[in-house]
């Protein structure tokens, strides 16, 4: 300990200061008493008997004002009860007595670090004072409003809770009063005022009959202020680590994992397997259907290809005659010439040959216009026999003159006019024979025998055929 006079450190067993000689016997005794009171105050504070703790701590400080621990604890208790200014005062005084290594630095720092909170606490104090004035003047409603705000700002302000409960009781709002007192009781278990009000409340609720004994009656613990039995408060003991908890946890994990591996996993595997097999079966059947479709489609394609080839062949075999524009010019010229000659009665054999020559340039098989074909046939019928006869006659004359080439030309021309008579055929054969073209000669003789079997020239043609063979 430090000597109160000179401040030097004195050994524990010495009753007199080595430096200034002060008698420390009384100081040591008061110190011991102060510490004793401090311990009791600490015990009460731990069990939330804040009122009792304040009493003990104040006594401790009366014994030794320099007991920093007691003063700091007193500040904490005040702070817990919502008495901010009282708490700050104690901590400041504690710092005054012990400037270094003081927990009060931490507490003051914590309060100052939150200026908003400090301001709200200050506001709570101001509103509390206003509410108190209002209550004293009889303005209960105003007081209630203010006190509710105070409690919102500082829920630990016990005096505000008690005042509010008192006003509620005055206005017969017992349930609300009970709630306020319950809150206050939670903060400070053995607050005399709170307990007294609760007792009064119980009396008021039960109709004036004293149904419940006071909280601290004859030292025995009766049922609590709220009518509920309180359990005895045991001293604080550190909980030992529970080994069984870990064992149970590990056991649970092992059982869970075993269940997983032996029950759940096989089932899941089996389900997955059967699902896979089903999918495979579906796939196989689908594949079969597609294969069948593919085969029939391929066959269809082959058939179509064959048909296509056939059609292509047919198409190639069709000889589409080329359209000859000049053909119609020839027939028109022939028709025009015929009409001209016929109308002027100039259709002589020579003129007929002219028209027949024009007609010989026309191939009726290539004509698509059927009217043109009819016209062609009509004109041909008119002029061809005349022209053929005339030209045939000229050919005979040339043959008789031994002009065989000329005769062949003329007779071929007469043949080309169509429908050759027996004379033309006979002379054609003779001319060809004369020109040593025996095969052609045979052809004409045969045609004569076929077309004109009763002709007078038939036997001559037959004879000539026999000669050629």
């Amino acid at each position, binding site marked *: 300990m430090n000597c*109160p006079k000179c401040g030097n450190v004195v050994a524990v067993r010495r009753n007199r200061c080595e430096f200034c000689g002060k008698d420390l016997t009384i100081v040591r005794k008061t110190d011991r008493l102060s510490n004793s009171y401090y311990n009791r105050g600490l015990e009460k504070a731990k069990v939330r008997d804040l009122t009792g703790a304040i009493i003990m701590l104040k006594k401790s400080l009366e014994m030794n004002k320099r007991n920093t621990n007691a003063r700091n604890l007193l500040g904490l208790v005040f702070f817990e009860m919502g008495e901010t200014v009282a708490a700050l005062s104690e901590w400041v005084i504690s710092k005054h007595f012990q400037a270094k290594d003081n927990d009060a630095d931490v507490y003051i720092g914590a309060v100052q670090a939150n200026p908003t909170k400090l301001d709200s606490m200050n506001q709570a104090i*101001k509103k509390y004072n206003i509410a108190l004035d209002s209550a004293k003047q009889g303005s209960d409603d105003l007081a209630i409003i203010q006190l509710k705000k105070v409690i919102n700002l500082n829920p630990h302000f016990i005096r505000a809770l008690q005042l509010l409960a008192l006003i509620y009781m005055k206005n017969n709002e017992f349930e609300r009063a009970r709630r306020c007192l319950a809150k206050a009781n939670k903060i400070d278990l053995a607050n005399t005022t709170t307990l007294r009000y609760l007792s009064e409340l119980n009396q008021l609720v039960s109709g004036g009959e004293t149904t419940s004994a006071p909280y601290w009656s004859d030292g025995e613990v009766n049922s609590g202020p709220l009518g509920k039995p309180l359990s005895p408060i045991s001293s604080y003991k550190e909980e030992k680590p529970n080994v069984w908890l870990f064992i149970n946890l590990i056991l649970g994990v092992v059982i869970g994992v075993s269940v997983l591996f032996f029950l759940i996993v096989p089932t899941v595997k089996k389900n997955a397997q059967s699902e896979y097999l089903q999918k495979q079966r579906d796939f196989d059947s689908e594949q079969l259907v597609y294969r069948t479709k593919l085969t029939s489609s391929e066959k269809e394609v082959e058939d179509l290809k064959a048909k296509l080839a056939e059609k292509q062949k047919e198409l190639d075999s069709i000889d589409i005659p080329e359209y000859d524009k000049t053909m119609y010019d020839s027939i028109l010229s022939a028709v025009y010439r015929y009409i001209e000659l016929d109308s002027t009665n100039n259709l002589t054999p020579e003129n007929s040959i002219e028209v027949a020559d024009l007609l010989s340039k026309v191939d009726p098989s290539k004509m698509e216009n059927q009217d043109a074909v009819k016209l062609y046939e009509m004109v041909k019928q008119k002029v061809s026999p005349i022209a053929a006869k005339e030209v045939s006659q000229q050919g005979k004359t040339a043959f008789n003159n031994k002009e065989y080439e000329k005769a062949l030309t003329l007779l071929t021309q007469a043949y080309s006019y169509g429908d050759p008579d027996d004379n033309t055929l006979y002379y054609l054969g003779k001319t060809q024979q004369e020109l040593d073209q025996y095969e052609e000669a045979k052809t004409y003789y045969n045609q004569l025998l076929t077309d004109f079997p009763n002709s007078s020239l038939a036997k001559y043609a037959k004879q000539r055929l026999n000669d050629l063979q």
Partner: protein
Amino acid sequence: MINFDEEIAKFQPSLEVDQAEEAIFNNDLTDITDMIESILNEKKG
């Protein structure tokens, strides 16, 4: 029975933060040791 007026009279106004300085200064920090000292000094004097 609680007398509400008496009870309300028991409630004292709370000190505000700006009044803390004054409260600290006015705080009586005399303990038993100081009292004994003063008694002993009176006796001597």
